């Protein structure tokens, strides 16, 4: 069971209060009509899916209802931090080279 920190509520809460909403920091192309099939397909369907450090989007459905980000290891399941939309999270330099 994850204990997840919601950066808006400022509380550590059980996993059941949240929904995972996939990889974080995926920007919608500014001009979709100008995208090639390649670019549009990549945006829609291709995710990093790393075995290791991963930044992901969660939503506090049973709490404030807000979306926020988590930095988590998908192999050890350790959560390294939660941060608000618009913020960035960096691991130590060595770790971060594995998770651009």
């Amino acid at each position, binding site marked *: 069971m994850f204990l997840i920190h919601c950066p808006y509520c400022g509380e550590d809460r059980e996993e059941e209060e949240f929904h995972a909403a*996939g*990889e974080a920091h995926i920007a919608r192309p500014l001009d979709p009509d100008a995208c090639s099939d390649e670019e549009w*397909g990549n945006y829609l*369907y291709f*995710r990093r899916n790393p075995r290791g450090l991963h930044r992901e989007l969660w939503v506090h459905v049973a709490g404030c209802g807000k979306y926020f980000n988590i930095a988590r290891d*998908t192999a050890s399941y350790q959560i390294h931090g939660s941060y608000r939309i618009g913020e960035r999270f960096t691991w130590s330099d060595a770790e971060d080279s594995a998770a651009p």
Partner: protein
Amino acid sequence: MSVFPKKRRFSGLGLVKQALKHQEGWQRMWRSPAPREHYDIIVVGAGGHGLATAHYLASVHSQAKVAVLEKGWLGGGNTGRNTTIVRSNYLWDEAARLYEHAMKLWEGLSQDLNYNVMFSQRGVMNLGHTLQDMRDIQRRVNANRLNGIDGEVLNARQCKQIVPIMDTSGRTRYPVLGASWQPRAGVARHDAVAWGYARAADARGVDIIQQCEVIDIVVENGCAVGVETRQHGRIRADRIGCVAAGNSGVLASMAGIELPIESHPLQAFVSEPIKPILDTVVMSNAVHGYMSQSDKGDLVIGAGIDSYVGYGQRGSYPVIEHTMQAILELFPCVSRVHMNRQWGGIVDTTPDACPIISKTPIENLFFNCGWGTGGFKATPGSGHVFADLLANGEPNELTAPFALDRFHSGALIDEHGAAGVAH
């Protein structure tokens, strides 16, 4: 290559003979050869799909210089962790053809492999709990029939006749309104499938190398030429086929390519063994749970995936609770049964719930993955068509729709309705 004495066929008479010899005369099922420096074809991953691929490469395409490399033990991945539901009632033509191809192979598999895979066509029931569920079921059964796949739409009373222990009273939160029913569907013994394919492939000279983890794919001038392994160094090959389920993305990144796959934990449970109460398979997408009973008597129960990406072969607690709620609502009589074991596997989900059986931008590198929560049923078919792709280098009519480029062309095969959480 170590030499292996010719395999003796398993038979009823053989059983009697071995019994008289106190079971001490059985042959080894397969060798443990040291890898050669070069193979015509390397298959990465000795799950059911990888082993089936090797078997058909050797038996259908007469390819002898084939190796299967496995980082753990053969059949220890999702093949040995799944709940063994086999059915072919998928909605779209492309998927229906592929899964029905597998179903036909299942029907002759024990004979083909000379190994009892305990394929039991006990029927699979997919429940509907809302009017929309029932409309979707009708549509899918009609589509199945047009594709020559058996299927019936049942009402709640007919469901109750087949599964007397199910609560069809209509008083539950999500009442059972009916179901789709595929009589030819059923279950098989998962380990036996891996072992049977391994034994048959080995008998034709395929080298199955366990404890051999691929840590890099060697690419020269855009062309895959071999793999780097943790235990045996570099092994070269003319063609490489990756069949690594939840770890497919990890392998793809070794070759510098990307796959539209996310890896999620999926779990299952078995109960203590009890007397026979269920002689078919019941699944429900809506309340999210499914159950069958093994020959030993344990209830085999499964559910949905964890919603986050994860490579831990365990499942989260909320899913356990959710699954048990669903099972108890359907089968109140099992409320006092204890669960014996719980485990997880890593399933490779795709955006359209269909597999990727494909060439890649790297020459001579092929992937067969994305089977997600429901690939066990496809094991023979998947191996059969992937062997064809590896031997010929080009897709055939069954595999062509499942190429990687569909995620850029937009030609997705949306099986979420028929695959979704159902396995």
